[in-house]
């Protein structure tokens, strides 16, 4: 049985009909063509499918699409305003805070939620906030570094010892 639902996705209103058993991640990717949420584990373990629902991160692989009815969703595609990267994205770029980049959409959304609540998080708070987002490449320190630098928050432990020169 199809259900009609509508929600706001990246500031655009969406109305569509889907079956009750459809999973949000699959609807976003396959029906709406929003590809930044990725499927890394399909059971809530890795965080690559992270999207913001009303500003809070959820794992879209374990959310039914019907649950999005009436909600406001944001994916990485919706973070940019007028084609400009957010300061957080800019910081990721400047700190080379990704390697393969597969985890990046989820990590950036998790960090977005964190900075919204806590603009100057400590290194430990950053680590806690992104600990549900698995990254196999970076060893996380460059990610922590990028998040810490967005609002010139406290220097997290490990950062200056990475030995990176400040890039011009």
């Amino acid at each position, binding site marked *: 049985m199809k259900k009609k639902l509508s929600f706001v996705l990246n500031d655009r209103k969406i109305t569509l009909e889907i079956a009750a058993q459809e999973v949000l991640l699959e609807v976003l990717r396959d029906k709406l063509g929003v*590809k930044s949420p990725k499927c890394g584990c399909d059971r809530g373990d*890795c965080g690559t499918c992270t999207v913001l629902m009303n500003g809070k991160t959820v794992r879209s692989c374990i959310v039914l699409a019907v649950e999005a009815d009436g909600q406001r969703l944001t994916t990485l595609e919706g973070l940019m305003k007028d084609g400009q990267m957010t300061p957080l994205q800019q910081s990721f770029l400047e700190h080379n805070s990704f390697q*393969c980049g597969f985890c990046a959409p989820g990590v950036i959304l998790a960090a977005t939620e964190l900075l919204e609540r806590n603009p100057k998080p400590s290194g430990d708070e950053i680590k806690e906030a992104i600990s549900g987002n698995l990254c196999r490449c970076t*060893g996380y320190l460059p990610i*922590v570094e990028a998040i810490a630098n967005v609002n010139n928050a406290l220097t997290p432990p490990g950062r200056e010892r990475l030995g990176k020169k400040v890039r011009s």
Partner: protein
Amino acid sequence: MNGLKFVGHEEIRIDGKPKITGAAQFVDDLDFGPGLLYAEIVESPLAHAEIKSIDTAKAEQMPGVVKVVSGKDFPFRFGLYMHDRFVFAQDRVRFVGEQVAAVIARDPVTAKKAAKLVKVRYRELPAILNVEDALKPHPLLIHPDLKSYKHVPWFFPQANSNIAHWRKVRKGDVEAGFKQADLVFEDTYTVPRYAHCAIETHGAVGLFDYSGRLTVWAASQSPFTQRNLFAEALAPLGLSHKDVRVIAPFVGGGFGGKAGVSMEILAAALATAVQGNPVKILWSRAQEFYNTYQRQGLTAKTKIGVKKDGAIVALEQTLHWDAGAYVEYGANVVNAAGLSATGPYRIPNVKIDSCCVYTNLPPGGPYRGFGYSEFLFGLESHINETAKKLGLDPVEFRRRNAIQEGDPLTYGSKMNPNGLIECIDKAARAIEWSKKEQSENPKTVRGKGFACFWKAPAMPPNASSTAFIKFNEDGSLNVLVSAMEIGQGFQTVMAQIAAEVLTVPLSKIRVELPDTDRNPYEWQTVASHITWGTGNAVKRAAEDCREQILELVERALGQKREDLYLESETVRSRSVADFALPLRDFAINGIMMKDGTYRGGPIVGRGMFMPEFSSALSDAETSQGGKPNVHYTVGAAAVEIEIDKETGRVRIPRVALAVDVGKAINPGLVRDQVVGGLVQGIATALYEDMRFDAKGRLLNPNFTDYKIPTAMDVPERVIPILVEVAQPDGPYGARGVGEHTMIPAAPMIANAVENALGIRIKSMPITAEKIALAIKSKR
């Protein structure tokens, strides 16, 4: 090498923007339109069995099902170094999860439902789940036809056994060496299987169009190798290499797992079964764990002979590898480890037996470190114990035996220039090696651990790289290579090399992802060889462009060739001060002559690199002769840990890793490799571990129970140290570093645990539980 403008600088990655805006496309992000079909695999529930029958009738009748195929439709074997793997199981299955049949349907739900309707009858055979059973006299043979399998000339399968390859190294006289020694002792170390856990699982889409051309889009480290293997395996269908095309978009992490060919062969084969429609096959996380490659398990018996003064005089290594059901790639891991199992030490008398053993567990294969992580766990643990027995400082003991330029390697040829001693000294200094750390908390104790490492690229001697460089109208350029961006940042490194030669800034360079139709040949993105091999090819292609440019300017404008040079995207002359011709003025359209005719035309450079000095041929009984390895990258790592004596938990206040990279083309990216590699390696040391039940079923094919590190599990300080002793044949002196940063992690931790507690743990992983229970039983 001063005056370099791009090489050696910490350039920002050129793949950054797509990756952090979500624009980067991975294979599952590509669109294939409404004709796309989905495949679901019917898998073996048994570790070892004969297939009696496969009944697909019910599945075929299900609406939405397009086709059901099985082994009889694809009676092909394939493999990278040995043809022992099957597209679909034929008369037998050899591990739990092996592909037996596939359902192709219009949508994934139908495919999954129909797959459950395929009925396969088996006759179960006894399963061999460990190396000891596989090596028993008269064992059940997992591959009875082993002797007939095609393989590379440097493999030595043993008839009527489960030994797929046996690498023997005999150098000097090991027995005489032990006689000479003041101290001889041996021990056994074990390493379980591990999983790569790239966060993107494997996926591939195949399309066999009506003209008979096969295109495969794959998350792959090895597009050209895949093309070759697809064409070879499917040759009976009349495919030529030119008709096979592999396109690799961004890859969400590889670590060796996406090298060679594993599940991608299914996309290629299934596509031929549904001509005209693209068919997608995407591995679930569970399949990613049990049906790609796993890092092989190892039981290593290590026997060492040393003089009182600390000189190692003899080493015997018996390495038994649990290589799994198919070893087409894994046997080369065994080979590479066998050739190098002395570690980076000068040892006159050596005996190494590295045996690749079939078992009924999932296929083993390449994983960052390619066998070196595994044997170095035992060897570097053993080196520490030896130092202890001799009353020598373990760092000093390593220093005394460290291999140096010109020393003979196990197979006879000479060691390349290297900065091992410098690495040892710098790593030790970085964690204040000689300072004993006192813990403030009475419940905890601190210790320090050290390990040296080395690794050579394991490549066929003719592994080649090629590059094209194409200029555009505005003087920007596209670099075409078929190396793969798996996160290491090779695109940025290639751009830096091209930029250095052609004086074009990185903002004007694109490095394209592989497409075997468009980009030139590359063997594979493995073996940490891309910076070196592909880097050489790109440098040569850039130099080719430069030659064309300067030659043209001489020819068209009469400038003296030897005075011409490039600077800031402009041709200048040392003799004519005001001569300045921007590249954009002629890179495509040439230079206009007075009469209105043009000279030149589009600048396209070509570069190729093959290590022509390499040879894998050597004596089967001794491995002497030949030069199987092009060079070694060496280094050392040191760690300080704090152990909670009650819980067994390990905290890592600081860890340092020094590696001789020859020349860091982008030091920032090299440091990032150190951080990422160490974290990955430390996880194998502390908690990662694949567990199988008594039926050969993997018990933890998910991140709930195969724990990989989170942001909360990283060391508090990571100190990357880059040493640069140039590699004479590397671009700007560079050699590879991607894998190396993971290799020393496990023995370094084991040695630190021993240092803190006096307890030697000889089996990985060294979990909190193992430590706590060991402390308890020691009391």
